[in-house]
C-alpha cells in the first residue's frame, strides 16, 4: 500500500486508539527516526515492556584460592566462574579467558569488585584493582583501586577484605579488556568460594556509550 499523508498541514492526527491493520504488530517510525515524548506527557504502562531497562548484568567469582607472592602485581585468575547460585546473567554477559574479560557490547558499565584475603603475619598493605585495556590487552591501566592491611590477631591466618568500583565507558567492545589485579607487601592467599562470592565482581550496563 502506498504511504498516505494525513493532515500534512497540521501534522496532527486526532484519534483515541491506534491498532495494526493486519497482524498484531504496530510500528512507530523507521530506522533513524526519533519518537519524542514532550515534557509533561506521561506514559503509563500496564502491559509488558521489553527492550527497556537493564540490558546487561553479570556476576563472576573465583572458585579456587590463589596464592599471591609479595611485592608482585598479580592478575586474579583462579578458576573464574559465573555466579550460578540463585543467579544468572541478563543479556549476553562477559566472556573470560585467563582472567581477562571481554565486554558483550559498547556502553557504560558499572563494575564493582570485592576481594578477601588471608595471611599468617602482618602486612602494611594489600591492594585490589580494576584494570582496563583499550588496545586488546597490550597494556592495562588502573581505573579503580582500594587498600587494606592485616595485623595478625592470632596464631592462625587473619582475614581482611576490600571493595572498589567504577564506571567504564566501553566505546569499542572489540578492543576493550577488563581484568583484576592484586598486590601486597607480603605474600597472602586470595580467598575463594564456589557457592558464594568472597572474591569476585558484578557488572551492570547502565546505558549506551
Amino acid at each position: 500500500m502506498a504511504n498516505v499523508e494525513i493532515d500534512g498541514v497540521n501534522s496532527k492526527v486526532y484519534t483515541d486508539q491506534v491498532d495494526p491493520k493486519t497482524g498484531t504488530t504496530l510500528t512507530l517510525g523507521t530506522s533513524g527516526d526519533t519518537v519524542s515524548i514532550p515534557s509533561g506527557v506521561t506514559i503509563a504502562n500496564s502491559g509488558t515492556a521489553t527492550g527497556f531497562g537493564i540490558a546487561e548484568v553479570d556476576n563472576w567469582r573465583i572458585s579456587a584460592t590463589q596464592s599471591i607472592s609479595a611485592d608482585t602485581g598479580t592478575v586474579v585468575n583462579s578458576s573464574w566462574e559465573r555466579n550460578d547460585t540463585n543467579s544468572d546473567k541478563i543479556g549476553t554477559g562477559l566472556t573470560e579467558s585467563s582472567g581477562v574479560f571481554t565486554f558483550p557490547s559498547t556502553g557504560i558499565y558499572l563494575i564493582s569488585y570485592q576481594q578477601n584475603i588471608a595471611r599468617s603475619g602482618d602486612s602494611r598493605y594489600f591492594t585490589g584493582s580494576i584494570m582496563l585495556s583499550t588496545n586488546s590487552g597490550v597494556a592495562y591501566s588502573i581505573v579503580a583501586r582500594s587498600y587494606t592491611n592485616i595485623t595478625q590477631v592470632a596464631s592462625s591466618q587473619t582475614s581482611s577484605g576490600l571493595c572498589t568500583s567504577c564506571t567504564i565507558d566501553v566505546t569499542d567492545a572489540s578492543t576493550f579488556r577488563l581484568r583484576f589485579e592484586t598486590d601486597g607487601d607480603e605474600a597472602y592467599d586470595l580467598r575463594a568460594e564456589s557457592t558464594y562470592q568472597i572474591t569476585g565482581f558484578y557488572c551492570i550496563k547502565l546505558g549506551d556509550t
Partner: protein
Amino acid sequence: MAKLNSKIIKYLNREVDFRKDVLLQDDGDGVVYIKEWNVAEAQPTDEQLDALEAEATTLENNYQVINTRKKLYGSTAEQLEYIVENGVDSFIAKQNQIKTDNPKE
C-alpha cells in the same frame, strides 16, 4: 627457590619500593617477571639474579626468623606488662632467650 623480590633486594643491596622502584608482575600464570625497572642501576639479567639464589634464600629465612621472634616477643602492651610484673632484668633475659632459640643464618 628464592622469590624474585628477594633476589632484587640482594642485587641492589638496599631496601626496594616495589610499588615505585621496581614493579613485578604475575599475569595469573604464576610466572613473576620484572614489569618496570625505575632505578638508576642497570636491570639485572636472569643469570645475575640466579647467581643470588643462596643470598636471597638466606634473606627469606632470616625474615621468617624475625617474624617468629616478633610473635614470641608479643605486643608492646604485653611486653610492658611483663616488665611491670617481672622486672627489666627478667624481661631482657626472656628476649635474649628468644633470640638464642631463633638464630638468624
